[in-house]
């Protein structure tokens, strides 16, 4: 039996799902379409065949499956458009259409997510994981910037830009469209089914890598000697960095899953000194990675925690936590000068940076908009296991930490490769440009490197150690301080959550603070250079 294509429109309540669906169905000529609604809103569907279903629960699941089957068998429709309930997680949708015998009747053609700019900017974090899971699984996001078919330039363009930036940050690979820009005359791509990876590309790449690696590893040709050394250095760096990355991720996942943001916020509110003291202690006790710290910071600002206390938690946490201290200690073979330098200078720099924002009022508008999900930087869809028993909790913890690892590992792999290449070829490049003994150049170079390489702070010490044979130690210290506080991925995340002026000011302040800290390190350790 040929399966019936089904388009699913998701999004939170009253964000324009039916409006957009009606508009998209206007040019669906020659199709017998049935609209299935799982929630009723202000706007009614404009199709002849409309089926209304109850909210999906354990009790209604069988009835819903029966009626959805009936749509195909009794109505003989050629296409079904389903308006999914904004309060039901995407995992229930997957269970319904992929894990029951409905999969024999339907093929999911495309998932749309409809939202408004104001919802993105003010409600996205407050409405729970259900809507968030829908957003992350969508093939296309429709940003309802005007009521279709109005094509005039929408108002509040700044708000729309901000919303688009936020969506791009959360789902970088998902195509998003402003509804005012949709042209139904040329809308074939909207209705075209989403392309699905088959895994062939992955297997092909894996095979290619294996062949190339095997060739270089086994070949005795002296011409490839440098490549073999790079590969060896790469594998050693990875072998050393991964265990610490894992430790950091396990701690970060435990924090995100088992400790509520409200708990952290309770301690940081109140007087500035108390808040900053707790922020510093919290940074030490709860090892969050730098990108997990940003949503926490956004949440704290939303709960009216003083900016310096919230910022100190964000900046100091990724530097002073035990995993980072341990990885730095091991990477630098027990060199306490580097370990203490990193912790002390990092703490002082973070306090200094935070205090410069004491009288800053540019975030006041955000205090009204509340908090974002703590796991903004890596939402994880969990299987339907109970959170209450140990098995369910353990499985959620393992899946969450695994997802976090898959998200961060590419950065560490790339960083390790670049560091290995730098070790082989960096010396001669630095010598060519006379940078090897230039203190200023070393600090600036390493700050730029730290920004673009976007390493996790639990794994950066190993990379830094490998660079230390070519770069003056103050440069290495600048790398170890700047990277956890600011890098490319943090910059993009901050830009989507905070006003541009605030982000630029923060970046410049961090650069200045890290340069000063690196110079202090140079003076204290006597490595001022030539």
């Amino acid at each position, binding site marked *: 039996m040929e399966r019936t294509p089904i388009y699913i429109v998701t999004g939170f309540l009253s964000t324009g799902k039916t409006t957009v669906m009606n508009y998209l169905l206007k040019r669906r000529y020659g199709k017998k379409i049935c609209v299935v609604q799982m929630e009723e809103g202000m706007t009614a569907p404009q199709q002849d065949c409309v089926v209304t279903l109850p909210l999906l629960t354990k009790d209604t699941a069988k009835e819903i499956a029966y009626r959805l089957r009936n749509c195909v068998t009794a109505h003989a429709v050629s296409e079904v458009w389903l308006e999914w309930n904004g309060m039901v997680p995407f995992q229930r949708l997957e269970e319904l259409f992929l894990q029951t015998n409905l999969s024999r009747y339907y093929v999911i053609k495309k998932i749309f997510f409809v939202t408004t700019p104001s919802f993105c900017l003010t409600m996205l974090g407050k409405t729970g994981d259900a809507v968030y899971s829908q957003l992350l699984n969508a093939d296309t996001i429709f940003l309802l910037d005007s009521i279709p078919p109005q094509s005039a330039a929408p108002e509040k363009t700044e708000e729309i830009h901000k919303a688009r930036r936020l969506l791009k940050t959360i789902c970088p690979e998902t195509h998003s469209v402003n509804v005012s820009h949709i042209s139904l005359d040329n809308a074939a791509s909207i209705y075209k089914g989403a392309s699905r990876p088959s895994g062939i590309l992955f297997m092909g790449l894996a095979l290619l890598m294996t062949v190339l690696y095997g060739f270089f590893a086994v070949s005795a040709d002296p011409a490839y000697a440098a490549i073999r050394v790079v590969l060896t250095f790469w*594998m050693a760096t990875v072998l050393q960095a991964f265990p610490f990355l894992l430790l950091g991720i396990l701690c970060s996942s435990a924090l995100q899953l088992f400790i509520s943001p409200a708990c952290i916020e309770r301690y940081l509110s109140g007087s500035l000194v108390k808040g900053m003291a707790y922020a510093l202690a919290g940074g030490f006790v709860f090892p969050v990675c730098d990108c997990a710290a940003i949503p926490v910071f956004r949440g704290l600002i939303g709960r009216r925690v003083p900016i310096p206390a919230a910022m100190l938690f964000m900046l100091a946490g990724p530097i002073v936590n035990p995993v980072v201290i341990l990885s730095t200690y*091991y990477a*630098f*073979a027990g060199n306490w000068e580097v370990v203490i330098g990193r912790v002390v200078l990092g703490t002082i720099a973070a306090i200094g940076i935070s205090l410069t924002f004491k009288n800053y009022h540019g975030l006041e508008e955000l205090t009204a908009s509340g908090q974002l999900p703590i796991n903004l930087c890596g939402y994880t869809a969990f299987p339907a296991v109970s959170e209450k028993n140990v098995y369910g909790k353990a499985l959620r913890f393992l899946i969450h930490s695994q997802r976090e690892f898959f998200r961060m*590992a590419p950065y560490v792999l790339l960083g390790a490769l670049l560091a290995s290449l730098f070790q082989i070829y960096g010396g001669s490049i630095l010598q060519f440009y006379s940078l090897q003994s230039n203190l200023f150049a070393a600090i600036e170079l390493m700050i730029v490197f730290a920004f673009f390489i976007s390493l996790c702070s639990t794994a950066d010490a190993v990379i830094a150690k490998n660079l230390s044979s070519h770069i003056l130690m103050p440069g290495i210290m600048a790398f170890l301080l700047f990277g956890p506080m600011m890098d490319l991925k943090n910059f993009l995340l901050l830009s989507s959550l905070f006003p541009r002026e605030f982000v630029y000011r923060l970046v410049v302040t961090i650069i200045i603070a890290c340069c000063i800290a690196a110079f202090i390190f140079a003076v204290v350790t006597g490595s001022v250079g030539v």
Partner: protein
Amino acid sequence: MKINLQAVWEGIISLLTGGVLAGLVVTGRYLSLVVPRMKLFICLAAVIFILWGIASLIQVKRPVYRLAYAHCLALFIPVLLLFSPLLLGAAYSADSRTASQTIEQQNIDPRPFGIDFDTVKGDGIDAAHKKIMVTTANYYPLILKLTQHIKDYEGYEVYMIGFVSYDDKSLTNNNFTLARYLMACCINDVSPFGLICNYSGDIHWKEYQWLAVKGQLGYREYHGLIQPTIAVKEVVPAKRVAGYIYPY
């Protein structure tokens, strides 16, 4: 019943990674890449990867809408990289450079100067006979001790095995450093470390050739630093000693 292919790949690749890490620890081949103190952390990582693999495979019967495989490369690359030392052993290491210069092993006396270096106990200093025997077990702390207290041991007879290194550019004529590779952190920072040999013989030994040296302990001052030296009395080819010296 459809299966979740992504979970299958994630499970397989996670289990593979855990297996490779465990294999490196069991065979001891991780020592060609990192220092022994990493053993506990690598074991921990292996356990976590295996648990992740099991967690992924539990989800195999839960098909999902959005499938992605590219992220699995983030684990495939380490598996590929780390499988090599498992497969090729210690030959795939910086230490292999010294192997290439080892002369025919069967003609070499395994007990140069009548000393079995493997059975030397303690710190290698025999104060009663004014003898010093530098072995793999005492290599780093002994050289450190000699450097710090050179005046106490000046004139002692030194016995040592190592390879010839000309890394120290201050050495002239046929002088060389009798060295072993020292690994402080991982293979990336491996460097020759040993005692300078003042050799008055006519032979210019090939770099990386393994030698056993007998001589008298002395020292030189170089840019304000005191460095122990050996005034070489006798040199014989020696069997290669595999592995690195780990200072910590």
